[in-house]
């Protein structure tokens, strides 16, 4: 029998009613998500895109209007689904009167951790998150970064198989960020599924294998980061039909450039190198053959990738047909469930 996915959501929809007879605000317009064990999955989107609502539904904090979600096959409405989930909410507030050790003890027991396991796990976790020296200090004395590390420890104390993390590096210094990044990769290496909700795209790019970009309650794009950031993925162009490369070569004159353009390539001279766009790999090889036949010497030919931030901005930038809220409110009203103005490259299989 196949193991169920760590996280699965199908047709997840959430409408917040705005009072009696109100039309309601659509926070999620029917999204599908699937995260496998050992995978680090990033959930991206501007404020109000529905990221937090999606995570809250997965935790049973918010009830979906339609659709279903499960953790390892257990519906999220069943509290037992959370036995295997560790959660770090954004802006969490642990009781300030508890010490770090007491916090982990109480929240561990609430997750069903036996006292003998607590005695073993808590010191190890505090050590791992560099909080050992602070274990008996009240949480109210903690800095933002320390509180965040304590939050991670509380999310890990019952050794969950799924981690849902909302801005885990928020308020953490660069060294701490790297430590958290390493910790997440380590946890993923142990087979834990991680769903990361973050605005720090550079962090997401370094940690996540796959991402989904939410916009106005819908999945605007989903796929592996290298697929999404491939330079060929430009609005309006087919994902599989266009490739862009950085070409460094000597012996390329204007005549050769004209020949390449005659072969259907787009070539631009940029700061000592060439920006070469081919239709596909076969076309690229034809162009390379032409270059070599004309005596040009190739020094470098690299696929050009845009950063995740470029992809993100391109996806969520307001378009006339689909305005994007920057208000930080719960959601935007969704006029359609589509990808509005993204062209045909948005969704990866």
């Amino acid at each position, binding site marked *: 029998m196949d193991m169920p996915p760590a996280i699965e959501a199908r047709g997840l929809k959430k409408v917040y009613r705005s009072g009696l007879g109100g039309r309601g605000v659509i926070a999620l317009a029917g999204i599908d998500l699937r995260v496998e064990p050992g995978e680090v999955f990033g959930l991206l989107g501007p404020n109000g895109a529905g990221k937090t609502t999606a995570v809250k539904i997965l935790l049973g*904090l918010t009830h979906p209007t339609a659709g279903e979600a499960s953790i390892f096959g257990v519906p999220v409405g069943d*509290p037992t689904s*959370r036995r295997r989930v560790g959660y770090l909410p954004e802006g969490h*507030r642990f009781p300030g*009167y508890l010490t770090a050790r007491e916090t982990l003890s109480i*929240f561990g*027991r*609430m997750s069903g951790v036996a006292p003998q396991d607590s005695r073993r796990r808590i010191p190890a976790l505090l050590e791992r998150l560099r909080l050992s020296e602070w274990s008996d200090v009240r949480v109210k004395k903690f800095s933002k970064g320390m509180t965040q590390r304590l939050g991670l420890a509380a999310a890990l104390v019952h050794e969950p198989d799924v981690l849902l993390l909302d801005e885990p590096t928020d308020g953490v210094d660069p060294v701490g960020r790297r430590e958290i990044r390493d910790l997440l990769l380590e946890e993923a290496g142990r087979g834990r599924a991680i769903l990361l909700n973050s605005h720090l795209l550079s962090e997401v790019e370094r940690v996540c294998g796959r991402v989904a970009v939410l916009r106005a309650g819908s999945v605007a794009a989903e796929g592996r980061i290298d697929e999404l950031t491939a330079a060929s993925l430009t609005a309006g162009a087919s994902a599989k039909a266009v490739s862009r490369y950085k070409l460094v070569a000597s012996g390329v004159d204007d005549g050769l450039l004209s020949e390449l353009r005659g072969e259907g390539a787009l070539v631009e001279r940029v700061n000592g190198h060439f920006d070469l766009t081919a239709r596909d790999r076969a076309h690229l090889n034809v162009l390379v053959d032409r270059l070599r036949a004309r005596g040009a010497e190739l020094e470098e030919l690299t696929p050009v990738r845009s950063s995740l931030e470029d992809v993100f901005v391109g996806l969520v930038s307001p378009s006339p047909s689909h305005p994007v809220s920057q208000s930080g409110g719960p959601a935007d009203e969704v006029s359609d469930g589509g990808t509005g103005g993204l062209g045909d490259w948005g969704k990866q299989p």
Partner: protein
Amino acid sequence: MRAWAASVEEVFREAAARWTLVAYFALSSLFILIFGLAVNLDVVNGALAGAKLFGQSVDLPSRSIDIDRLVLGFESGFSGFLYLVGTFLALFATAHLVPRLQEKGTVDLYLSRPVGRVALLLSRYSGGLLLAAANLVYLIGAIWLIIIWKTHVVHARFLLGGVTVLFTIAVLLAFAFLVGVATSSTGVSLMTTYAIFFVAAMLAAHKKIAAAMSAEWAAKLVDGLYWVFPKTAELGRATVAQVAGARVFHGAAPPNLFAVYGSTALFGLAALSLSCWLFSRKDF
């Protein structure tokens, strides 16, 4: 069970950290100390021969005073005082439990654990009730022991008064939880619960109030409210009656205890059930 125990422990830790627990027990201890050290009774052959308060002799009437009657009078009076003050203090110390749980950034931490919402709410409720019960046991138990030490008079009935006080706290705390779940405000929760206490006490005179009403529907409304609300006035009288025996009802009709306790318990159960239902349905 483990999660329930953790939640109850957290209620006590929170009470300790907010000085509620300390203040609660410090006030009780102060009362116990004053009573234990300041009052000195001279009992001869079952009668009070002399008394000193803070070292000063108290003038006693020339006829001898039956010490048993004196103790009973004190105990029943103290129970009435405890019913009012104990209930109010307990509510003051515990009404924040739900609003604080529902605070942004806090509720996520609790609800993301594998504990059902109803179980979580009931564990907070039982934690609050245990806190109130612990203080009642401490205060009533200590006063009872001091009375025995000073007078050698043992009235086990005195301990029973605490049961009715705790029952009243349980019912009113359920209502405070309902308002807390609905409004997430400690202030509103406290004010409405105290208001219920006093309005319900006034409704003890519902027959007289209804008779004074010009419209029949208004009279029926007053009667209806009387049966819906907890019987706070009758419970106060019942507390004193339990401690003192039937003598407290001289000149007044003894209340129908079954109706008093039954309808009050129903009110508490309804409030608690409604708060659980509301808490389960809420989006956070």
